[in-house]
């Protein structure tokens, strides 16, 4: 307890002093940029501040078809990546929760991609997907199947499977985007496995035991005991995976041919140009800093609304223990 007379004594001051270094850095590089960005977004801003333009950057962004297209690509990407990561993560974790031999080794292997660099693994994968001498096309050739252009294919998977003309070329995510999604899933599934495993092992064994005595086995045990009890973890993972996928940069950038110059990133035909790439190239290659910042704020508001929606749904659906 703090003695009333000593509120601003030496002990109290110490608290602020200990917080000062972290607080100053957070203030300078996380809070201040938020306000400064809001300021920048109201200017025509190239290499330096040029002219005050009010909200016209925002009107520009909202009328920019390239921007909306990048958001659509982002939505395809997020919807393709998040559920798969969660389902795969849960399935693998529930297999690993059985106390089988080599559990630690499996966990280690699945987690390995997560600690490597996205640039390095993006380069490895872009070679595996290479249209001329990549591993996947070699496998297709061995099976006497036609080779694919993978990361260079702007057509959607439906357009590829169905007879020509049945679907327009722009319908659905391109094969290239699906390839990017596969690599993303490969990279993050281990993270989901580890978080799920921690959640699953935290469920008391007696709960399962009691359900078993009541006759719940197999699927019913899973449906009525495990899934409800693990739902806070699922909810947590869904929220952070959505935010993470919305902000993906390095993996998309590397796989789609972005180099130090930033050229070509988001190809083919812009079908992998997610919102972060739109913001980055507008800023880095075109030097439209005010416009790019306005776009970043629009994305932020959309993501905030999406997270808020998830929270509301989560509130109603998630079962907490106790």
């Amino acid at each position, binding site marked *: 307890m*703090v003695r009333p007379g000593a*509120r601003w004594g030496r*002990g*109290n*001051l*110490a*608290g602020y002093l*200990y917080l000062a270094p*972290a*607080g100053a*850095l957070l203030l300078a*590089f996380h809070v201040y*940029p*938020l306000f400064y960005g809001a300021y*920048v977004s109201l200017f025509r801003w190239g290499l330096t501040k040029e002219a005050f333009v009010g909200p016209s950057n925002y009107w520009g962004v909202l009328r920019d078809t390239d921007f909306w297209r990048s958001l659509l690509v982002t939505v395809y990407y997020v919807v393709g990546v998040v559920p798969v990561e969660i389902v795969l993560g849960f399935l693998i974790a529930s*297999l690993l929760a059985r106390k*089988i031999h080599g559990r630690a080794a*499996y966990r*280690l*292997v*699945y987690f*390995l*991609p997560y*600690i*490597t*660099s996205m*640039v*390095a*693994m993006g*380069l*490895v994968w872009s*070679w595996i997907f290479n249209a001329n*001498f990549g*591993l996947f096309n*070699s496998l297709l050739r061995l099976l006497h199947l036609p080779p694919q252009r993978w990361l260079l294919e702007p057509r959607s998977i439906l357009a590829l499977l169905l007879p020509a003309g049945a679907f327009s070329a722009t319908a659905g995510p391109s094969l290239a985007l699906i390839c990017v999604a596969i690599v993303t899933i*490969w990279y993050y599934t281990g*993270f989901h496995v*580890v*978080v799920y495993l921690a959640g699953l092992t935290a469920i008391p064994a007696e709960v399962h035991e009691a359900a078993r005595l009541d006759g719940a*086995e*197999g*699927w019913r045990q899973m449906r009525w005991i495990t899934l409800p009890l693990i739902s806070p973890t699922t909810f*947590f993972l869904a929220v*952070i995976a959505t935010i*993470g996928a919305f*902000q993906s940069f*390095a993996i998309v950038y*590397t796989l789609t041919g972005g*180099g130090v110059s930033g050229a070509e990133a988001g190809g083919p035909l812009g079908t992998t140009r997610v*919102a*972060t790439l739109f*913001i*980055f190239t507008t*800023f*880095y290659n075109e030097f439209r*800093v005010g416009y790019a910042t306005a776009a*970043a704020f629009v*994305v*932020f508001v959309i*993501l905030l609304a999406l997270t808020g929606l998830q929270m509301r749904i989560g509130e109603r659906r998630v079962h907490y223990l106790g």
Partner: protein
Amino acid sequence: MRISRTAVHILLLCGAVATTLPFFWMLSSSLKSNVEAIRFPPTLVPQEWLWQNYVRALAAAPFPRYFLNSLIQSTGVAACVTLTSALAAYAFAFLEFPGRRLIFGAFVATLLVPPEITLIPNFVVITALHWYNTFLALIIPLGASVLSIFLLRQAFLAIPRDLHDAARADGCSSGYFLWRIVVPLSGPSLAVVGLLAFLRAWNDLLWPLVATSTENMRTVQVGLLAFSQNVSTEYNLLMAATVMTVLPTVAAFLLAQRQIIEGIGTTGLRG
């Protein structure tokens, strides 16, 4: 669910093969000749082990310089994050001061600010400070992490408060207590926080790409990306370079995998 043990192992092994295949392919190709690397049908194990690919890759671009830059950046970030987080976590866990909960809430709220937004303003700020193309720009903006503060606060809360009260009654200063009691007792947590900060900085692409422009300031990730465009036809050299980029993080992870996995499993700390 009732699945036999064998089936479980088969499923898990399939997943493990799918997960490790790119690593295997990277390693194997890094030792092949370029002709063998793009041969059809592909060879799984190199017919000829060309260890000199690594020497050639190192000579083909200033990789030692990239490694040094990344090492300085990542070590700097790790030291900075560990220090600022330990100090802040100590205040939140042990000290009483007005507005403690409010400030903690404000710290957590900064997690909501997305990197897309801070990227451009931070670029403008470091340019104004004349930090562009310096290590200060690579290190200082990454020097505080709310998730690390959170993780350390949890670790510090596990230390009995009686210990703190007793030390205080004995006239021990808070700095002495932090340094002599809390830090030694929380060694593994501090190591995990430091290591995760190191890995995050080592693997980062976006910020070093934006904050530096000259070759002598490039980090490993930016350098690797540049290298990939220069040697786009020599896959064996490219794979040797990626192995070298990934190796330090894998080694660090293997050394402290149990602590890292537990830290992430229980807090959901992302990178």
